[in-house]
């Protein structure tokens, strides 16, 4: 029995207890069970982390799940440095969100249901990161999708929430289709699902030469495999073109947005790519796709984030943008940088979302930043923690975001991807701008809606506690793990598992690295300065800029019209064809044929019914005539 199994059991048991007894018996005490479960996971995860630091690792089969001839699917767990980091991220943020939810979801009629879903989510995410084979990854993958669906649609009586959860599910399904294909290729190629089977250097080199022509283009087998897997990552990690579900997912309760749609679930794609680094590093076409998808998503998210007015949507697009960064990092081969950014991002983005929840709490669920302002005095803790989150995400040293983001930029530069590097640097400036834009609009200046401002108040301790804790992590996590650049603790820790065999990592000259670092700080500072200029110093500037760039602003404000485009290209044709098949084919052809079979007997019956008069004397008469006729026939012939 491995100690790590406890990590899985905690949330699972909490889920079962709350799920079975929550509605009738536990009700508003559900948080005790859920926090006990996730707390156990958290403690064991920290212990595991230190044990892994000491060289401990586990790759064990707990039992054989499917055994079909030579083909086996074990239910096994894998604990290595990558898993240990993910465990820390998942359980820390999850525990904080659990505590925060005690305050935030207070008085909600679905209190026990909320904690039940949180537990099943935590369990699923842990399955995802702890599995030792592709199928367990996939099981976790689908389970987090399910729990995300349940939590986005938590207030299912709101149509927008019900629509959003369906959209999230369908978009993920599209990506999962590719994921299936990738999985099948892995099974067929490596005759097994275990990571240890698939990631063998010799096995990969052996199949490297296999190429196939798809749509007139030459792909190697590994390219096809990884492209399939990456489709799954695009769905789960909200990459272009499947990114549209994530902003809509903000319909869910804010703790859920923080946990699932910022810190953990959406990073599953990054985790998967990093986990499969042995495959991805050999897939050159896929790597290009990954870099440019990540780059474009980062740019897309940032441009939309610039123009939004809904606080949670700003954060959601910022998440899309940051996920783009991570994906881009994995594409250029900087797996450590990608995971490092995942790690720091989980803390500061989780923090920012929880802050937005705190603001929402104070503003009676209104999220329009145009109605806020001057909340600094009313909510000091939220103010300071949000500021920390903003500085962290903007990339000002020594806060967490700087270390990981700068590393991604440096590695992109070092690997010779100049255009992605340039775009990512611009995006870094934009990120600093729009994050501080939201910060200034919400907390600084004068109140824009006096009535709402008067009713604003700081949140209870159960909510501010996690804020402070995450703020501390946002300050420290980067420097503690990432200093010195490219040679910090995290590199030594993750390096062994995330450096594919045969890869030649590029390193920068010390002076170049320093130049890049200064450049990224300058860009971030410029973003913050422009933001200050626009929203504090000269408040008339935003209006003027919008007027000057009207078409561009409209384009960005409407999210590049992606929803409209998908409606026109996909939804509309499907609805039109379905309607034709329904009205035209189903009703006129199929129903017509079936009805015809019914109508013939009805017609015959309609004629024959007149024989049945209901008068018995007619019947008797008929019988007598019949008997006479029969006698006549038999006695005359």
């Amino acid at each position, binding site marked *: 029995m491995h100690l790590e199994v406890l990590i899985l059991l905690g949330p699972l048991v909490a889920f079962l207890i709350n799920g079975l007894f929550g509605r009738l018996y536990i009700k508003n005490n559900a948080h005790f069970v859920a926090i006990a479960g996730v707390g156990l996971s958290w403690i064991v995860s920290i212990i595991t982390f230190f044990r892994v630091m000491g060289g401990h690792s586990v790759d064990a089969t707990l039992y054989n799940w499917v055994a079909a001839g030579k083909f086996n699917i074990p239910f096994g767990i894998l604990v290595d440095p990558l898993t240990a980091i993910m465990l820390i991220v998942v359980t820390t943020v999850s525990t904080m969100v659990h505590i925060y939810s005690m305050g935030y979801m207070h008085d909600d009629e679905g209190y026990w249901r909320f904690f039940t879903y949180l537990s099943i989510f935590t369990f699923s995410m842990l399955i995802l990161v702890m599995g030792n084979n592709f199928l367990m990854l996939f099981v976790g993958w689908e389970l987090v999708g399910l729990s995300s669906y349940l939590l986005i649609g938590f207030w299912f009586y709101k149509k927008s929430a019900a629509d959003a959860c369906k959209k999230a599910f369908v978009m993920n399904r599209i990506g999962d289709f590719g994921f299936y294909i990738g999985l099948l290729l892995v099974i067929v190629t490596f005759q097994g699902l275990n990571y240890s089977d698939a990631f063998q250097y010799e096995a990969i080199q052996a199949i490297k030469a296999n190429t196939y022509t798809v749509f007139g283009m030459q792909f190697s087998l590994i390219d096809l495999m990884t492209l399939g897997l990456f489709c799954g990552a695009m769905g789960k990690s909200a990459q272009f073109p499947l990114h549209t579900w994530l902003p809509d997912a903000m319909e869910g309760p804010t703790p859920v947005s923080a946990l699932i749609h910022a810190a953990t679930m959406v990073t599953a794609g990054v985790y998967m790519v990093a986990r499969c680094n042995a495959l991805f590093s050999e897939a050159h076409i896929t790597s290009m796709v990954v870099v440019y998808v990540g780059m474009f998503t980062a740019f897309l998210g940032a441009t939309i984030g610039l123009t939004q007015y809904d606080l949670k949507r700003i954060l959601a697009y910022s998440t899309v943008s940051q996920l783009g960064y991570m994906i881009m990092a994995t594409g250029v081969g900087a797996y450590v940088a990608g995971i490092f950014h995942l790690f720091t991002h989980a803390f500061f983005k989780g923090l920012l979302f929880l802050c937005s929840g705190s603001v929402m709490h104070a503003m009676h669920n209104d999220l329009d930043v145009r109605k806020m302002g001057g909340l600094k005095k009313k909510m000091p803790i939220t103010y300071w923690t949000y500021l920390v989150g903003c500085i962290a995400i903007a990339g000002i040293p020594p806060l967490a975001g700087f270390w990981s983001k700068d590393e991604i930029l440096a590695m992109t530069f070092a690997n010779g991807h100049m255009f992605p590097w340039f775009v990512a640097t611009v995006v870094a400036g934009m990120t600093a701008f729009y994050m501080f834009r939201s910060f200034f609009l919400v907390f600084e200046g004068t109140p824009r809606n006096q009535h709402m401002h008067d009713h604003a108040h700081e949140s209870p301790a159960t909510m501010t506690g996690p804020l402070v804790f995450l703020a501390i992590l946002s300050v420290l996590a980067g420097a503690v793990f990432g200093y010195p650049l490219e040679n910090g603790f995290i590199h030594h820790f993750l390096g062994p598992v995330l450096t594919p065999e045969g890869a030649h990592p590029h390193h920068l000259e010390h002076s170049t690295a320093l130049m890049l670092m200064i450049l990224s700080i300058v860009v971030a500072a410029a973003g913050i300065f422009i933001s200050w200029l626009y929203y504090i110093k000269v408040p008339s500037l935003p209006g003027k800029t919008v007027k000057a760039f009207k078409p561009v602003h409209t384009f960005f404000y409407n999210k590049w019209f992606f929803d409209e485009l998908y409606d026109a290209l996909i939804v509309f044709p499907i609805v039109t064809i379905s309607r034709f098949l329904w009205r035209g084919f189903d009703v006129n052809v199929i129903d017509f044929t079936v009805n015809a079979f019914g109508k013939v007997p009805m017609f015959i019956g309609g004629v024959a019914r007149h024989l049945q008069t*209901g008068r018995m004397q007619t019947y008797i008469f008929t019988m007598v005539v019949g008997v006479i006729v029969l006698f006549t026939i038999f006695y005359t012939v």
Partner: protein
Amino acid sequence: MELTLAHYLILSAVIFALGMTGVLIRKNLIVMFMSLELMLNAVNINLAAFSNYLQDMTGQIFIVFVMAVAAAEAAVGLALIISLFRNKQTINAEELNIMRG
């Protein structure tokens, strides 16, 4: 004049025909019922005649059977007619056509 088998058979046939005509043309259920009894008894005459002619007791035994059935039928049939009258206030066969298709 000697009574031969033919006389009996003709009597039987005449009574049977009368009974059948009654069943077919009368509208009153009671009268139809009596006509039915007439038909049964016509058959009885037939059976008795043949029994005597063939010197075989089987025919007469069957007469007892027919009479037993007729008695039972009378009891049930009359009860049905009474029940029908209570519900419909009529025993006119013409008006009892709720089973019309």
